């Protein structure tokens, strides 16, 4: 049973990451490969505040959101100068740079040694010990984020985002401040990723910089492309599929060396075949331009 709870927690964390990235990539059409950086900022902020300063989980998660928000505002402003593949490349560059900070700011982040012994959250002095309680916590966060995302998508703001995605110039002509729209959604998305980071850090209880590299960003992107851009439910399906895939492969009992690579090959082939035959993803509504 513990095992399913574990899978459930990991699923909710990645579902948060996927849904939030979809707001930027799917709904606004900005191919960001920096999501793992914001995931990491949230995780680090929570880990440091919880372990070194004994600050409540919710406060430290809030600080993580704030930091990720500020970082994403800066990064977003720089990225707003770029388009399409240059945007993707520059965002990837920012992920590398943020990761370098995690590695090199030894005194704050612990460098490559990382931060062990991160505590579990507590409510009014009551620590969440059992994984089941943690599952509920993750579920609550996930539901909140999913509902907020759905609200954004269905609001007039969300419609404006899709309009930007489909024809930026037209919208600019109508007097919309396109840059502000892009920035706002980028910051919101980064703050959501930071929450996923907070949950991740206090659940796994150990983080180091290798968790937040561009490989992770590519993985999250794979989730939403598989599930479908511009579809929140698609992101859930993508996350479910890709989180369970390694578990399936382990169960199949392939030799270990093979299993790890087979998993990679499946990721890769999935991307190729989707692009060739179903660029909208499993249940997506939008095709990249």
């Amino acid at each position, binding site marked *: 049973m513990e095992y399913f709870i574990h899978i459930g927690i990991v699923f909710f964390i990645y579902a948060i990451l996927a849904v939030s990235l979809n707001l930027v990539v799917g709904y606004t059409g900005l*191919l960001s490969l920096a999501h793992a950086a914001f995931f990491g900022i949230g995780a680090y902020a929570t880990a440091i505040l919880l372990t070194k300063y004994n600050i409540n989980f919710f406060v430290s998660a809030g600080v993580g959101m704030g930091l990720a928000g500020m970082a994403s505002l800066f990064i977003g402003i*720089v990225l707003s*100068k*770029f388009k*399409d*593949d*240059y945007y*993707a*490349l*520059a965002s*990837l*560059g*920012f992920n*590398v*740079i943020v990761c*370098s*900070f995690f*590695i*090199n700011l030894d005194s704050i982040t612990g460098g490559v040694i990382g931060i062990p012994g991160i505590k579990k959250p507590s409510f009014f002095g009551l620590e969440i010990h059992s994984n089941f309680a943690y599952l509920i916590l993750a579920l609550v966060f996930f539901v909140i984020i999913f509902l907020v995302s759905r609200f954004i998508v269905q609001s007039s703001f969300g419609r404006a985002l899709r309009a930007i995605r489909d024809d930026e110039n037209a919208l600019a002509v109508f007097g919309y401040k396109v840059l502000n729209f892009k920035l706002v959604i980028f910051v919101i998305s980064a703050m959501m990723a930071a929450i996923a980071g907070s949950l991740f850090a206090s659940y796994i209880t150990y983080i180091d910089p290798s968790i937040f590299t*561009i490989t992770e960003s*590519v993985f999250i*992107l794979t989730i939403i*492309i598989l599930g479908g851009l511009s579809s929140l439910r698609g992101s859930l399906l993508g996350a479910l599929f890709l989180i369970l895939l390694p578990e399936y492969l382990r169960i199949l009992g392939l030799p270990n*060396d*093979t299993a*790890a*690579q*087979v998993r*990679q*090959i499946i*990721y*890769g*082939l*999935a*991307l*190729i075949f989707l*692009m*060739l035959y179903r*660029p909208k993803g499993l249940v997506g509504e939008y*095709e*990249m*331009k």
Partner: protein
Amino acid sequence: MDMLTQIIFNSLIAGAIYALVALGFNLIYGATKFFNFAHGSIAIAGGYATFYFNKILGVDVYLSVLLGILCAGFLGYISNKLVFSPLRKKKSSHMIFMVASLGILIVIQAVISLIFTSEFQTLSSSLASSKKYIFLTGIITKTQLILFLSVLLIMGLLVLVLKKTMLGKTISAISDSEEIARNIGINSNRVISYVFVIGSAIAGVAGIFVGFDTGISPTMGMSLLLKGVIASIIGGVGNVYGGVLAAFMLGLIENFGVWNFSGEWKDAISFAVLILFLLFRPQGMFGKK
């Protein structure tokens, strides 16, 4: 101060590898206008093919190198034939091309790991036994000297092909505008196929040299490619000389960065340079506005 020459040599060697990646990347980007992530893994595949022929089958070194280059070219051909060409027929967006190429990168990496394990391999039996030359106060090995000369040779040949042959002229025409090229009767699919073969073969040379010089591992493709991409952007995308010059410059910046800070900032420095360039001189050092 007597180490200055050595640092410059180190930079030139690193730069030469980046230059080879940039040359091939530039060529393919010019004709197809998308970021081909698969390019880096094709380079590494070339190195592994040479490793396979030379170290496992015991084929003569020079023949193995030739076979390695052919394998890389062949991979380029196959990736175009099976993935990019069909995508072109569907008039897919550049983003879709890019994601598909990311898929190819992941697949090639995993297949190499499956065959050769994920461990690091060197092509030369022992570099220490390779002959060393001393210029001024710096040391350079024979392999590195050959590498350096090969870059100049390949660059010269490429310029010659592009400027003097019919194929080169059609490539330039397609790079300027594929539509016009098609209208004046150029078989653009065939020409692009050649471009993939030539570009990938040059990438293969890079991978083989990395194998001889320091050693290769399956997952190196991404970082190798990114350095090449950074170089070609700084040099002005599509500019052969610019790309090569920028590659050497990138080598210098990186190594002087390591000299002044520390080894761990290396990648962050390259990306910071890239982002600065994209912001303030997106057309590259030598590009026209």
